[in-house]
């Protein structure tokens, strides 16, 4: 674990794995002086409360799985995405098998970024861990469900994007007027199901 200076009141905690990111995030949650706590792929950005943060990090067990309240969320998906066939061909599977794999796994929101409510979900079965498109799309429709590298995600709103799209969901992922504005938050447990 390495603490990197980030201006006068923030620090970037660098670790080796997503599991360690989750451990750091869990350990630092609930410190009132901390203004922002932003997990990412190999880092946790902490703004504010640095004295308390350093103290907490001194005796942290990075191997301990975090014990936090997590929401369990099910996202219904119409598996008719424009890249479903490409994904099936790349994995040497049928389209049906791709859907079975994607709905059969349990995912965790590792972190959010890119756009409000865009959650990077880990737990993607190995055959579905595939590269981004060579040419990113200039517009990915809201609700698109895609895969890229070790992640799967649903696009909260229309944005450019290079992920391989396997389906779409009608669920609301981001509503700035709601009490809980994003469907997904770091640490949440997510499954996908075939939409009825």
């Amino acid at each position, binding site marked *: 674990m390495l603490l*990197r200076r980030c201006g006068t009141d923030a620090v970037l905690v660098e670790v080796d794995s997503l599991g360690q990111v989750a451990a750091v995030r869990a350990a630092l949650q609930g410190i009132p002086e901390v203004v922002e706590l*932003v997990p990412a*792929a190999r880092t946790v950005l902490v703004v504010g409360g640095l004295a308390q943060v350093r103290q907490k990090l001194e005796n942290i067990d990075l191997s301990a799985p975090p014990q936090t309240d997590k929401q369990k969320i099910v996202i219904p998906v119409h598996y008719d995405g424009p890249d479903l066939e490409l994904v099936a061909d790349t994995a040497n599977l049928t389209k049906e098998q791709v859907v079975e794999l994607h709905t059969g796994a349990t995912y965790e929101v590792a972190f*959010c*970024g890119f756009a*409000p409510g865009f959650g990077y979900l880990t737990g993607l079965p190995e055959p579905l861990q595939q590269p981004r498109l060579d040419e990113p799309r200039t517009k990915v429709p809201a609700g698109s469900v895609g895969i890229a590298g070790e992640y799967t995600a649903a696009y909260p709103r229309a944005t450019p994007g290079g992920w391989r799209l396997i389906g779409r969901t009608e669920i609301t992922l981001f509503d700035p007027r709601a009490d809980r504005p994003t469907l997904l938050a770091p640490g949440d447990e997510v499954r996908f199901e075939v939409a009825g």
Partner: protein
Amino acid sequence: MRRLTVLATGPQALVQDLGRPGHAHLGVPPSGALDAPSLTLANRLVGNPEDAAGLELLLGGFTARAHGSCTIAVTGPSAEIRKNGRLVDSHAPIHLAEDDVVQVGTPRTGLRCYLAASGGIDVDKQLGSRSTDVLSGIGPAPLKVDDVLPLGTPGVPTGEDVVPPVNAPQELAIPIVLGPRDDWFEQPAEQLRRGRWTMSDRSNRVGARLDGTALQRKQNGELPSEGLVTGAVQIPPNGLPVIFLNDHPTTGGYPVIGVVPAGYLPHIGQARPGVKVRFQPVE
């Protein structure tokens, strides 16, 4: 209901308060007034709490009509303010009666004037703030002609108060604290000290973009995306620094060589394209 009707917007007129920090882990930028001290000052002049929502007016050109009486104040760089066509003072409370028209001219220096009205701009909050976030589209849309801005319940004015306007300099020596990724660069402090830049016209509320010296990296490639603070100076592959301002993306994959302390950022929010820029690495 007391309200203002927008008659002209100028290049960009936005509702801004002190933003919505605390949501970065959901991918939501902090947003809020770029020159927060000028907004809080305008609020104090009209008897509002400092965090009330006002208007951030880019390069003036704004006109509004009052419905019901209210007190307004315009702060930031010095600009001509007119009430019903007659010059009045900026940086002082101005009383508007029913149908009075206020005009905010183009500031002589700087970029952004702030208009506060007694009671504050009372549009609905989103994620705890009324600010418009131009990156994420959160908050009210940029103002258009004929928009009606409701005003909240006025507080008790603190009496006559006149303060000097912001004088935006033509040259900035920007303090920068090295890290978190200064180790991606050869002699980062030296490169920053020696470089010379100008503020680009592609700058906006997301980031101030600089033209000039391209910084040399000692390693190529990208990082796994990591959290960004406001004031982070990111170096994309072309080597030209981007200073992230309030509507910045919450994560990014290019190395951040250093961070500008928060107290200096209002000056950057007032720096016009063409303003000369140097960096001063500080411990």
